[in-house]
């Protein structure tokens, strides 16, 4: 990581949010840049090249999804969505459009900063992704396409393996149903969430130490799944 403090751009039209997020981010070792409209936010992304962006979906001047699409056209860094529970579909759309994760309002700063760290770490991993991942006694070798626990190979079907890789590559951020279905089953099956229910259950049976209490694959109800390790 470079010598300068990681810079976080917060785009939200509520001044009260900046009022506490500013000190919180500074205290956690980040540089806080604020923007109150989508237009201003996009300009700040271009000018300040932030290391991460926190984007409120309910902005006055532009639809949140539209703002995200515009940002993604020239910005590759992590984008975290701030959303409200009644904007469920908007949130999922934003994730599908390339947002890294989301936090629901109202939120504690601890949760926001944790998500922010995961998203930033994931971006770093992607640059030099490890070909072999070990979680406890579970070992995933992405070169040989082998999964084993305590040295004993686990027999995953090709679909189960692909699904696992998608989740692992998510690196802790939520992967939406649509993203998983498109990557594993193809674009014709983006609505077939029941496939995921079946295959995730099978995957948990094979890799989770206790499938009833998943510690590796977390469910985000109505949104997708998240790799916890």
């Amino acid at each position, binding site marked *: 990581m470079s010598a300068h403090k990681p810079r976080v751009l917060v785009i939200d039209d509520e001044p*009260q949010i900046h009022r506490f*997020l500013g*000190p919180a981010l500074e*205290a956690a070792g980040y540089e806080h840049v604020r923007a109150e409209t989508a237009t201003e936010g996009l300009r700040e992304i271009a000018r300040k090249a932030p290391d991460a962006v926190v984007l409120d979906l309910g902005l*006055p001047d532009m639809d949140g999804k539209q703002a995200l699409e515009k940002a993604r056209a020239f910005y590759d860094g992590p984008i975290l969505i701030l959303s409200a529970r*009644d904007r469920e579909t908007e949130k999922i759309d934003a994730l599908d459009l390339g947002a890294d994760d989301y936090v629901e*309002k109202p939120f504690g700063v601890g949760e926001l900063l944790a998500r922010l760290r995961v998203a930033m770490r994931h971006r770093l991993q992607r640059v030099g992704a490890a070909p072999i991942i070990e979680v406890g006694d579970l070992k995933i070798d992405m070169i040989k396409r082998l999964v084993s626990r305590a040295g004993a190979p686990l027999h995953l079907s090709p679909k189960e393996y692909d699904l696992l890789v998608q989740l692992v590559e998510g690196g802790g951020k939520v992967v939406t149903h649509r993203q998983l279905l498109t990557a594993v089953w193809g674009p014709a099956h983006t609505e077939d969430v029941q496939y995921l229910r079946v295959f995730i259950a099978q995957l948990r049976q094979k890799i989770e130490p206790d499938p009833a209490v998943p510690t590796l694959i977390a469910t985000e109800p109505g949104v997708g799944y998240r790799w916890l390790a």
Partner: protein
Amino acid sequence: MMMDAPWVVAHVERPNAPAPSPTASARLNDALKLAEQLGGSTVVLTGDDLVTSTLDYARLNNVTQIVVGKSSHPRRNPFRKTLITSLLEASKGAALHVITEQAEAEAVAPRPARRSLASWPWAGQLGALGLVGLSTAVAFLTDRISDDANLAMFFMLGVLASGLTLGLWPALTAAAVSAFVYNFFFLDPRLTIWIGHPADVLTFAVFFVAALITGWLTGRVRDQGRAVSRRAAAVAALLAASRRLSSAVGHEAAAQVLAEQLAAATNGAAVVLTPSDDDIVLTAATPALEALPSVDLAAARWAWEKGEPAGAGTGTLPNSAWTFRPLQGGRARAGVAGVEPHAVHAEEDERFVGALLDQGAVALERAEFAAQAADAQALLRSDRLRSALLNSVSHDLRTPLSTVLGSVTTLLDYGKSLDKAVQRDLMLSIREEAERLNRYVGDLLDMTRLEGGALVTRREWVDLRDVLGAAVDRVTRRLESRQVVRDFPPELTMVKADPSLLEQALVNILENAIAYSQDGSRIEVAAYEDRANVVIAIEDEGRGIPTAQLEQVFEKFRRMEESTDRGKGAGLGLAISKGFVEAMGGRIAAASPIHDGRGTRILISLPKERQTPEQLL
């Protein structure tokens, strides 16, 4: 035939043909109506020749298939071609389908007894005889005075008079009797039916034929004239009824108009029943009627369910006091109308009542559609309001909560590494947001009280200057560097009001003024009185309200949708102020812009009591 092809039922009206019997016209009407209900269109063509009219229409409208029914009646004139043969010979480019009649006798129209014969007005015949007698008397006198007068002319006059005043049949009677009398009394040998002179035979024959023709012609002219004027009267009455029906607003009004018109048309009482929850209920009656006995209701229900007449004078439940007929609208049955059985006499009346029923059915149906459309509109509006409420509650509750939670967690997690000033600022923001939340919850509660009708006003004598001062004090901390200018008169009449409600109403207006004006601007609060009211005016120097939205500022959840307006409240404040002020008998109004295209003025006026406390002392 192709499925889904458009189809037309054509009826050719022949102006020179004799009028069809009422049963036949009724059957024709039913058939046309049935065609429309089944999705076809209907057309009435006018032309002397059935075949040419039909084929012309078919050619002009690109009709490719013609369907005709073959009548099984024996042909009256064996030398005339049947309709089918003529069509077959004349049609070009269209396929002809012939449907033969069912064997059942039921399909044949019952031929009505020849009513016109049975109901001969004997008075007319007697009148004709009287006119012939008069002619005879005049002829007799003339014969006395002059020998060579043409006496036949007098009888001809009598026949003419009979025809013009009494109609066709009396005229023919007059012609026959005149011929006999003329011969008996005035042709030699007199007082016999014999005619002596050969020339007189010719005279008599010519006279007889001329009298018959004259009687026939004048009688017909008179009858047709009568028929035309009767029909014109019926059309005018129908037009008037239809105008009243179409101007009736609402289902019940239409039913009432129909009942009145039916009662007037039948010279009796009339009732209209319309559907309500799978049953039909008495909707209108002339003269007014509370309820129908169960036997009548049963007949009405039968007419409603089967779509056929029932009750008195019909085969179904004839012991009912009414004759019920279905009101068949364009798409569905609109209800049932009942008239007293003795009320309908003549065929014209019958036809008129039928037309009235049709009009009424359409009017009822239209009222029903209008009501449905209005319901849908109201539903849409309340739906929109509900979603506005949800959005508003979600945003306005969550934003302060986000700040409180975010600030508290910041203090908990990083409190030690924060400056004292930053810590204090976070705590201040927690307090502000908690207060904002409290205000919002208070607004919601006030609104609920207002809408639930649970608002109790405790009215007491108040000095508006005090209440205004208290309201300004309550918003002082939010003023920042805005300046409040007070313009109060030294003397102000007291009014009766609920001080806490009034204070809340004023606080809401002041908060609005603060939210929509720039820091550093002036807010002016003034009080004054006229003869009947004490008035409070609150003015800001904000950007004002567009004239088009002025009337809506007091509506719920009406926040001017502009980017910078977010977080200024739910848009309930002014609605609550209006509710409170009106609950105290006052009025509230907004004016904007007030100077230089900017600023908003809210006026509250409260009525003065007749007796002031000063006078009571």
